[in-house]
C-alpha cells in the first residue's frame, strides 16, 4: 500500500535528511518509525502523507506514484491520511467541536452528517463532554486526544501520528496508545513515530508490527 524506493530528501540549504530509503508497508500494519531526535522520523511521515515531496526516488501510495504529483492533486492525497502532528496544530480560536469539524468541512461532508461523526470521534477519545471547550484550556493529554479525534473523524484507511505520547506520563501515554491499537485492530494502517518502541504493547499486535528504525537519515534493518 505504501512503498518507498530509494527515496531521499534534502531540505534546501540543509545536508541530506533522508537517504536511500526503501521499504514497503502493507495495509493494516502497525508501524513504528523509531530513531533519536533529528533522525528524520517526521520527515519520513511527511513524505508518506504528501506534505513534502522527495528529492529523489519514488513514493508509491496504493500503486500510484506520488513523487511528483502536481499541486492540484496533492490535497486529495493528503485526505487519504489521518494526521496527528507532533505539535498538534490545533486551532486555538475554535472550540473542540469546530476543530474536529475541519476535515469534514474540507471534505464537503454535509453539516447533518458531520455532527454525528464529530460526536462519535470525540466520544472515541473521551472528550464528548468538552465539545464547546476551547483547546487552550485543556491539558496536554487532552489536546493530544483532540488532535487524534480530528485525525480519525474522516475515517482514513491510514492513521499517521508523530510522537503522540511525547511528553505525557506513562499511564496517560498508554491510554493514548490504546486508542491507536484499537484502530489497528479494526483494519486501519497505523504509523507512529516515536523515539523508542513503546513498552506497552499487547501480544496480539506483535504479529502485525513493523519497525522502521532511522539513524541519521538512513534506514537500519
Amino acid at each position, binding site marked *: 500500500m505504501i512503498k518507498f524506493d530509494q527515496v531521499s530528501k534534502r531540505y534546501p540549504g540543509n545536508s541530506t535528511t533522508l537517504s536511500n530509503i526503501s521499504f514497503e508497508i502493507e495495509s493494516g500494519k502497525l508501524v513504528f518509525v523509531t530513531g533519536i531526535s533529528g533522525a528524520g522520523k517526521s520527515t519520513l511521515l511527511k513524505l508518506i502523507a504528501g506534505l513534502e515531496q522527495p528529492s529523489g526516488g519514488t513514493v508509491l501510495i496504493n500503486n500510484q506514484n506520488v513523487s511528483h504529483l502536481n499541486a*492540484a492533486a496533492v*490535497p486529495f492525497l*493528503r485526505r487519504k491520511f489521518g494526521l496527528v502532528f507532533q505539535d498538534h*496544530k490545533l*486551532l486555538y*480560536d475554535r472550540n473542540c467541536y469546530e476543530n474536529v469539524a475541519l*476535515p469534514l468541512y474540507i471534505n*464537503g461532508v454535509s*453539516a447533518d452528517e458531520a455532527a454525528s461523526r464529530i460526536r462519535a470521534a470525540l466520544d472515541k477519545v473521551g472528550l464528548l463532554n468538552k465539545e464547546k471547550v476551547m483547546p487552550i484550556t485543556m491539558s496536554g493529554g487532552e489536546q493530544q486526544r483532540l488532535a487524534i479525534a480530528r485525525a480519525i473523524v474522516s475515517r482514513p484507511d491510514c492513521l499517521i501520528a508523530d510522537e503522540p505520547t511525547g511528553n505525557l506520563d506513562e499511564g496517560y501515554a498508554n491510554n493514548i496508545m490504546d486508542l491507536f491499537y484499537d484502530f489497528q485492530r479494526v483494519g486501519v494502517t497505523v504509523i507512529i513515530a516515536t523515539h523508542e518502541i513503546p513498552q506497552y504493547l499487547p501480544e496480539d499486535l506483535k504479529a502485525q508490527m513493523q519497525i522502521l528504525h532511522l539513524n541519521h537519515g538512513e534506514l537500519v534493518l
Partner: protein
Amino acid sequence: MKSWADQQVQTIALVTERMWDKKLSSLLIMLVIGIALCLPAAMFSVVHQIQTALGSTDHKPEISLYLKMDIDEASKHAIEQHLKQHGDIAEFRFVSKTTAWENMKEDSTQKEAADALSINPLPDAYFVVPKKVDSDRIKQMQKEMQSWHGVDVAQLDSKWLERLDTILELAKNLSHLLMLLFSVALLAIIGNTIRLQFLTQREEIEVSKLIGATHWFIRRPFLYAGTLYGVGGAIFAYVLWVGAIAFFNISITDIADLYASQFHLALPGIGALFLLIFTGAGLGWLGAFASIQHSLVHIE
C-alpha cells in the same frame, strides 16, 4: 451536487457571521465601496440626462441659408426641392427678402438702421431645423448646403449648444475615466481588506492545507466576503445616489421655476440598482481572488 450546495451555504453562513462580528468595519468598507461606485455612476447619469434634456428643448440648432442676392428663380426652386427631399431635416421655413425687410422696419431696435438704408440689403433666406441634435451630422449638413448653387452663406446657429455639447461629452468621458480609476481603487480596497483577513486566519489556512484543503476551498470564504462587500457597497451607492439626486431636485426647483422649466433629474431605477450590484459583486470577487492568489503563493 447537494454537498456542493451545502458547502456554499455553510461558507456563506460562516462569512456573514464573521462580518456580523465586525459590524462596524464591514459597514465602513461597504460605505467606501459605495462612494467609489456612486460617484462615477451618478455623474454619468446626470450628464446623460442633461444631454437628453437639451436635445428635447426648443433650443434646437438651426441652419440659416442666406441666398445670393442675384439668385434666379430656378435655383431657388432647386434649393426648395433639395430641402423637401432631404432626409435629415425636421422642418424649414422660407423668409423672403421683403418680409425680412418689413420685419426689420417694424422692429423698434432695428428701425433706425433700416431707415438709414434706402434699398433692401437683406437676402432671401431659409431657416432649417435638422432632425437629430448630433453636432457632427449637423456640421456635415451645413457644409453640404453651403455647396448648393445659389446659397451665399449656410450658417450654423446655436454654436453655444454645440459648445455645451462638447463640454458634456467631455464630462461623460471624464465619468468613464472616473469609473476606471474608481474600479482600480475598489479592487485595491477590497484586495487589501481580504489580505488582512487572510493574515488573521493564516494558521487555520495552513492547517487546512496540511489536511487536504484545495486552493478553491481556501479561496471560497474570501471570494464570498469580497462579493458581499461589493454587493453591500452597491446598495450604499444606490442609497447615496438616490439621496444626492433627491437633494439636487429640491434645490433646483427654484431655479427651474424661474425659467418655467420642468427639468429635474430622474432617480436611478431598478436597472441601475442591478447594474451597481453586478458591478460591485464582480469587482469584489475579482479583488478578493487577486488578493488570495497573491497570499497563497506566499504560504507555499
